[in-house]
């Protein structure tokens, strides 16, 4: 049975088609979901893609987090459905309180695009189980408001419970506290991160690697992980 992965399009979503392509390349069936509806169309997992939903003028992700479909996404996530938030999707998850903390303007003030090295800190999640703990991967990062902040107590709890899913390696591109690039929730079904795995799924269009330019496909594992998980369930 093919696994069906929903990709939500909000007004201002940009990487929705890329996320659908990534789902397809991983062997699952992408299903387009619309922000204004309450219908999850019976999908097995959900991706909240990157972009600038509603222009991100208020706080990144803030308005999208209050859209009709998010009521369903929040319920589904609380019920255990795998949900991945990429960049703006991560911001939406945070604004929807599915993950703690907040994302603010990069400390240097500018939008930045770079091929970013990450360390996988937690493989106990629906979207990271295909990695090995401590594995270093390279996937593109592109954001203006990617600085992760939370108070010290929250940060300590995240560390203590192993909920930091990804950390920036070599360069902290946006001033994120404790180099946090991505988080998972306690249950492991919800994962959010600033870098873009869906831009590292197809050789020729991904980040540069030592082997060849634009050959990086480390992002594919996110999508194959959820496939494996969904098939097992």
């Amino acid at each position, binding site marked *: 049975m093919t696994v069906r992965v929903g990709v939500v399009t909000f007004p201002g979503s940009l990487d929705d088609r890329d996320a659908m392509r990534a789902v397809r390349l991983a062997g699952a069936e992408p299903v387009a979901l619309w922000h204004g509806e309450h219908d999850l169309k019976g999908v097995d997992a959900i991706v909240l893609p990157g972009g600038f939903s509603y222009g*991100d003028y208020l706080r990144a992700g803030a308005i999208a987090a209050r859209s009709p479909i998010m009521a369903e996404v929040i319920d589904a996530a609380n019920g255990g459905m795998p949900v991945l938030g990429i960049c703006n999707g991560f911001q939406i998850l945070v604004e929807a309180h599915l993950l703690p903390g907040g994302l603010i303007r990069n400390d240097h003030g500018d939008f930045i695009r770079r091929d970013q090295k990450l360390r996988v800190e937690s493989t106990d999640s629906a979207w990271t189980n295909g990695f090995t703990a401590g594995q270093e991967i390279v996937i593109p990062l592109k954001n*203006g408001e990617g600085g992760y902040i939370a108070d010290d107590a929250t940060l300590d709890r995240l560390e203590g419970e192993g909920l930091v899913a990804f950390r920036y390696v070599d360069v902290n591109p946006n001033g994120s506290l404790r180099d946090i690039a991505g988080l998972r929730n306690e249950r492991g079904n919800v994962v959010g991160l600033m870098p873009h795995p869906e831009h590292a799924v197809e050789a020729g269009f991904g980040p540069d690697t030592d082997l060849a330019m634009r050959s990086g496909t480390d992002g594919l594992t996110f999508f194959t992980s959820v496939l494996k998980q969904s098939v097992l369930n």
Partner: protein
Amino acid sequence: MSDAVAPAIPQPDTVDNAIATPDKHQPYDALGLKADEYQQIREILGRRPTSGELAMYSVMWSEHCSYKSSKVHLRQFGQKVSDEMREHLMVGMGENAGVVDIGEGWAVTFKIESHNHPSYIEPFQGAATGVGGIVRDIISMGARPVAVMDALRFGAIDHPDTARVLPGVVSGISFYGNCLGLPNIGGETWFDPVYQANPLVNALAVGALRHEDLHLANARGVGNKVVLFGARTGGDGIGGASILASDTFSEGGPTKRPAVQVGDPFAEKVLIECCLELYREGLVEGIQDLGAAGISCATSELASNGDGGMVIDLDAVLLRDPSLTAEEILMSESQERMMAVVEPSKLDAFLAVTAKWDVETSVLGEVTDTGRLVIHWRGEKIVDVDPRTVAVDGPVYNRPMQRPEWLDALNADSARALPRASDDSELRAQALRVLGGPNQADASLITNQYDYYVIGNTALAMPDDAGMIRIDEESGLGVALATDANGRYCQLDPYAGAQLALAEAYRNVAATGANPRAVSDCLNFGSPENPEVMWQFARAVEGLADGCLELGIPVTGGNVSFYNQTGDVPIHPTPVVAVMGVIDHVDRRLPSGWQDEGENLYLLGV
């Protein structure tokens, strides 16, 4: 406006009124019209223009919209063409953007345009709205925009004003392009004090479409509805119109009319998706973006290119600022708006699509066969013109030209006169100085702010010599683009300089493995009223046209930007040339960098 002071009720200057008061003084000169141009308008109409008509003529006959000084020269691009150059051309010069067949049922449309002056006044918004404008040109052809590029010229890198202009321009381009989700796949950055108070911000957009999706901007079909959709109309960019407003208002009229426009890339992104859905569902007959000259331009051009007549009710325009006068509404340059021609039977479906995307829409009027563009406001007829006299048959000038007297001396003063390095260390110091110059420096401070990953089809981008985009995911068909210019060569010899820019862009595209197929250009020059500048312009156009004929690729469109000068000092002539090439499979692309150890290096050419 606060409620306390009720806005004065503007008295519309009606057509009847214009007939009744033939001798009323009109501020045509303050609107940029010359006395003979104003006289010409009076002759065309057989009476004085209403202030609304004067607003329309003044913006549409401006250099920017009418190409009145450049037209006689630009004709060469259409004349110096061979069959080879026509072979792939689906839409040539004169439309919003040219369209080129790239095979497999696909076509590509691309164009480069300037936003120089606004970017000096307000770098962030000026550059941002420059990207927004060129992208709307691409959408209006029926294409999905797939990438942008930017060619930039700044003053001295260590000048304090460059520290204001450069970060603003770059973050404006970054903000708008990134929010639209269009990969930025390349461009140029150049520093020279001649651009100090007149930076150049040229933005390019490229879009892809299936052959059958091609749309042209025309208003055909009597009874078809004329619909305005997108952002509301506000007082943006109508500094000039306030002259008319103060003429119309007896007193207490609006005074605060900003010359700058603020862009909303989110609104434009939604507009793109909305337009593409309208095309897909076959709900529009013709479509036109609103840029400079706003509704004046869109109505007169749509009507001119179609059945020739249109009747519009200006009260139906949704306003952001209800105090706008008719003249201001006609001239407003509010961003993120489009005008469409829609069959009445499809209007409901059209409105359903715009509602789905939360895009505000209003029906302004309809297409007629009267040959007249008639505009009503507050129940009165305020415009009644032959639209072609506004949009097409404007004034054309054969401006005087003169080869600059200083040119020979400048050419004679060559590098040969400079002292040679006397020893190795001096040579080393000179080489390092050249390599350390800002124009050789790594551009990543700029390019790192641009997203080239979005859409997932970018095969080449910075730091490669050309950008490359996959158009068809199944077949791998793609296009490569490069932009180049060198103002210093053009200052020495505008004919050869333009050809060098063309040759460089052509080489940059060819070096990726793509076959160069078409050209767009943005011609940045000083004042056309300066005979030396006009000579430079004519020579550059001739050089470019001859070069294109030689290389066998047509100019499909572009943009002329005059009046780039500080005081009386013009910038170096800077024709920016963009070349687009086709590659059957992007997997066969060649990047600029070395890929593996042990590869051999060859130097080709002379």
